[in-house]
């Protein structure tokens, strides 16, 4: 019969599922329906749990595997967050918790439960304290500490399953923070331990439930041992698991619409007020306009003015990770004014945007939930005080007291972006196809026309002629833009270090007709200028290119050399549309549609062969490298464990007991037997005459007549099938009184 508490919880889960179903039907939100399904499944599962799972778990192997799985989860988290100072004591404490759980497994220990309850609350208190106090990864700390806090209560198999669940929770947190392939190593070890646990648990059930256990005969075992034959079932299971997992991973649809749980930021809030000034922490103190054969993190486009005469290479260091379901250029800001050498923003004023609830509303238009997608930016190296976005940004989740929008639509904050800062942006998809843009017409608003067709006197005649030639007979501005884009992409070479710009010359003229090579800003400037000569509004935009997508982490790895400049052209009623004139770059800078399948975006652009093997191998090696200093210690520990288990060091009783999970030489469950043996141990201590391991109790009694009576009782307690009766227990206890 079911326990009342089980029934109540099951009914509660079913009720929740029903309620969520009704709400999801009312709101027509599939995410809520999935929650409802989850509640139903959990209720069903809770009712199906076998009674044997609630019995005390005696298997030390299972406990060791559960412990291992928990440690792997914590290690993954420690590896990701570098919380080693917490991980190492946590593993020791976790071991102690399992010790207590194993010793008290026979019945529920209320003080263990109460202690676990208090500890768990202290852990959450610590997490909130850490969140408001700038502690590193307070949630990760909480995940590790919570695993330890409840470990003493893991006495049944169901509890051990829950313990593994906590290990998986650690792994989950590590997964959200992992940015490279090293996580796969931890995940693989965890899965192996989980499956080993399940396998062994099934085996234990089989051994317990059946009277007869049939094993292969010794002869057959010897015959098969003569050659190494890997266990066929293990090989098949591994192959099947890897294959099916890979297929599921590739063929699982992804729903990356507006998340039900809104994103949030965790870093300490930015207090400074934003200004029109762009602060670039990577900017060198001295910026030479001539050729500089150096590479670094500084991109001149992330500045208040983009100096086209500046020459510098860019490193391959990862600047930020972007988690986005749609590939995009990560746009930061735009320039409207060109003076022949630099681009700048004529109007440096900024518009303050108020914080509305948990987010900043960037664009007030009504959108459908399915038309937007969330991006999360994780900053790795210092970046300017610009907010990078994809598509048409709608909402910004950022821990800042104030943000502002510049006159060209770029978002500014009061301080430069610092490493470990995380912010999220909800953007609308604004992908426009060619026919729509061709039909847009040329009825430009006056202010747009005035501001974005400005040209300096330095623009040469041959530039205008080239633009006119390229636009000859083309019916729409879109066709003109595409023609100029194609011309630039086809006829000019890309280099970080074009020749220095001659003094007094026009950068675009020199690029188009003298040097015929240059960096992205020169390509973009040329296109923008040529379009402006034709009366088409255009501007130069800066930001980052898409970067490399890792399908396993689902992160775009954006490097310093992905810093980029491109062009935006204005189309009436549609706004600014990006174009990519730079040779060698992705030809379509528009934000792509949300990828529903991993292979639609990932494997189309990424070299499959280069992703998993090398990265996994290097990740494994790097983990091995980190672990290597501990290996001698581990070897010594293992040796000590084996020796103590074999009782080669007879005097270290306590240590041996700790290492043997509290298991005694004989498993004694009867309280009477236990009382007599405890009394015997006390007597030995009191008389200071311990029994040698090789001695029988009677031999010991001859040497120590004080325990003679007790020795007989010990024999009864240890060897007689019937447990000692009340008189015998009383006799043993009486010895205590006499001893005193």
């Amino acid at each position, binding site marked *: 019969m079911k326990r009342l508490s089980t029934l109540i919880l099951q009914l509660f889960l079913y009720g929740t599922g029903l309620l969520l179903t009704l709400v999801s039907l009312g709101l027509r939100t599939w*995410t809520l329906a999935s*929650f409802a399904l*989850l509640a139903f*499944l*959990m209720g*069903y*599962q809770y009712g199906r*749990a*076998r009674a044997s799972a609630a019995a005390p778990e005696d298997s030390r192997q299972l406990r060791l595997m559960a412990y291992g799985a928990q440690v792997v989860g914590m290690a993954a988290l420690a590896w990701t967050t570098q919380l080693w100072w917490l991980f190492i004591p946590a593993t020791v404490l976790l071991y102690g918790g399992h010790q207590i759980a194993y010793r008290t497994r026979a019945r529920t220990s209320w003080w263990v439960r109460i202690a676990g309850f208090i500890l768990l609350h202290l852990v959450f208190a610590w997490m909130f304290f850490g969140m408001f106090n700038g502690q590193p990864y307070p949630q990760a700390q909480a995940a590790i500490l919570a695993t330890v806090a409840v470990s003493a209560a893991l006495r049944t198999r169901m509890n051990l399953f829950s313990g593994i669940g906590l290990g*998986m929770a650690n*792994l*989950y947190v590590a*997964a*959200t923070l992992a940015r490279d392939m090293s996580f*796969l190593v931890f*995940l693989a070890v965890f*899965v192996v331990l989980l*499956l080993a646990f*399940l*396998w062994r648990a*099934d*085996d234990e*059930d*089989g*051994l317990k*439930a*059946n*009277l*007869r*256990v*049939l094993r*292969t*005969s010794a002869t057959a075992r010897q015959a*098969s041992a003569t050659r190494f*034959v890997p266990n*066929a*079932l293990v090989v*098949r*299971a591994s192959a*099947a*698991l890897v294959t*099916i*997992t*890979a297929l*599921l*991973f590739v063929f*699982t649809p*992804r*729903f990356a619409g507006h*998340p039900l*749980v809104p994103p949030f930021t965790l870093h300490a809030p930015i207090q400074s007020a934003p200004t029109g000034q762009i602060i670039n922490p990577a900017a060198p103190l001295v910026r030479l306009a001539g050729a500089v054969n150096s590479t670094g993190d500084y991109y001149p486009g992330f500045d208040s003015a983009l100096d086209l005469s500046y020459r510098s290479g860019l490193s391959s260091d990862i600047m930020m990770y972007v*988690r*986005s379901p749609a590939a995009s250029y990560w746009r930061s800001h735009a320039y409207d004014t060109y003076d022949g050498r630099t681009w700048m923003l004529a109007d440096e004023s900024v518009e303050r945007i108020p914080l509305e609830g948990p987010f900043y509303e960037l664009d007030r238009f009504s959108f459908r939930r399915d038309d937007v997608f969330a991006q*999360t930016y994780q900053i790795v190296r210092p970046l300017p005080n610009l907010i990078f976005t994809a598509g048409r940004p709608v909402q910004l989740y950022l821990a800042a007291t104030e943000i502002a929008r510049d006159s060209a639509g770029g978002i500014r904050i009061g301080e430069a972006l610092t490493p470990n800062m995380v912010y999220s942006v909800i953007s609308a998809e604004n992908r426009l196809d060619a026919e729509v843009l061709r039909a847009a017409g040329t009825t430009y608003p006056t202010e747009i026309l005035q501001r974005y067709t400005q040209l300096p006197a330095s623009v040469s005649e041959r530039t205008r002629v080239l633009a006119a030639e390229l636009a000859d007979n083309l019916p729409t501005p879109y066709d003109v833009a595409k023609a100029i884009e194609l011309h630039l992409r086809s006829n000019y070479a890309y280099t970080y270090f074009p020749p220095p710009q001659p003094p007094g010359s026009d950068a675009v003229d020199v690029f188009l007709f003298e040097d015929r090579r240059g960096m992205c800003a020169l390509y973009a400037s040329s296109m923008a200028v040529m379009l402006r000569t034709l009366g088409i509004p255009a501007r130069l935009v800066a930001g980052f290119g898409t970067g490399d997508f*890792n*399908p*396993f*982490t*689902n*992160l775009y790895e954006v490097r310093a050399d992905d810093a980029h400049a491109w062009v935006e052209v204005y189309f009436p009623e549609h706004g600014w549309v990006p174009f990519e004139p730079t040779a060698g770059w992705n030809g379509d800078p528009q934000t792509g549609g949300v990828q529903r399948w991993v292979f639609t975006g990932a494997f189309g652009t990424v070299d499959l062969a280069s992703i998993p093997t090398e990265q996994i191998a290097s990740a494994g090696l790097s983990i091995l490298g980190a672990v290597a200093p501990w290996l001698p210690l581990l070897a010594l520990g293992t040796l000590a464990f084996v020796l103590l288990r074999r009782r080669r060091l007879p005097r270290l009783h306590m240590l041996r007991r700790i290492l043997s999970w509290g298991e005694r030489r004989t498993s004694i469950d009867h309280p009477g037997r236990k009382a007599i043996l405890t009394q015997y141990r006390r007597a030995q201590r009191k008389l200071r005459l311990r029994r040698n391991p090789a001695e029988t109790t009677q031999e010991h009694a001859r040497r120590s007549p004080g325990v003679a009576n007790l020795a007989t009782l010990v024999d009864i307690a240890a060897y007689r099938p019937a447990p000692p009766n009340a008189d015998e227990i009383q006799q043993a206890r009486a010895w205590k009184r006499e001893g005193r």
Partner: protein
Amino acid sequence: MKPTTKPTARAGTLLVAALVLYFFANQTQVGWLYVMAAVMGGCVLAAAWLNRAMLRSVMASRSIRLTTPAAFPGAKGATARIADAIHEGDRVEVMLRLRAGKSTAQVTLTEVCPLTSDAQLRTQALYIPMLSRSAIIEHSYDVDVTQRGIHRFDPLKATSHAPFGIFARQGTITADAALLVYPEVRPLRRLELLDRRQTLQQLRARAGHGSEIIGTRPYRPGDSPRHIHWRSSARQQSLISKEFADDAQPALLLTLDCFAHPYPTATAFETSVKIATAVGEYALRSGYRVELLANEHTDPKAAHMPHEETWHTLLERLARVLPRGTQHLADLLQKPSQAQVAAVLPYPDLTCAAHLSRLRAAGIQVLAIVVSDAQDEDCAAVAARLRSAGVDTRIVQPGDDWENTLAASAAYPTASKANTRAEIAAP
């Protein structure tokens, strides 16, 4: 039985975990969460696929060997124990041989042994933690066979949760075997019905009654001089008589009532079979020709012709008979050619008793053995009816020491003393 696969609670747990992870993966767009969800789902699917192959690869065979035969005191000569035959009470060894085919298996088997009523041995749960590819596991156990008949071993019921206990596959593994168990033989010390006739026969001077010479034997006083085999006598320097085939060998009609009576009891019928075996064995041992009449056919139109039985065929038939006949025994007892009839009645049937009485009235010596679970009124009435007709009637209860009951002398006038209905009427 077609194998079936059912998911366990673990499958549900892992799927819930996969769904939760998938949900959060969609919420957070964390790629590793998609991987974790795929791993959880992959565990379930891989387990389902591997579990399906778990029972398919296991092959089993079964062999049965007689280890300790039950003692046969007194049975010898024509009714000696047949080599390798298994009787009730024998101890046999059942050997189960299991072998994994192409892949490794982990399986729980349920072996149901039909040979014994011992609950522990009758249903055995056997667990094989690992049966490696091409490895062999042998499991043998001894059982005391308690029941005659044809015993067929059912296929082994097999369950496998491997790997990981995520799915439970149930099915059967063929290891068919059948065993014919002969009834227990309890040789009788004496049986008045047959002993009387034998005594008469032993007094005859001639060695055999027929005309066909089947052998020679030393001369006995009283042998006819015509039957001396002179050539052999000359050769052996002593008189040797010819021995003739016993063409007029006395015959016994052994009848066993197998009618499907409305209230049959298995115990009474089994005791009846044992008694029939004992009587048949005694008759064959005593030189009688035995014909068995058992109304065992379920087809009401089937002809029941008594056949002369050897010891082997008698055991074969008595091992197989079941109380499910559709024709009444009385209908078959019309005009027996034998001078002696032994009727074993597991049910007190008055109609049958009337027919036996009629046979007795016709001068045939009849022994009626009524087997009854309890001394009820029906039994008493049948016994009274038979006895009043002069039929030697023995009432036996299952569990009784019925050998002594049969060996005892009749306590009332029998055919040897009174052959007429008038004499029978005065007990």
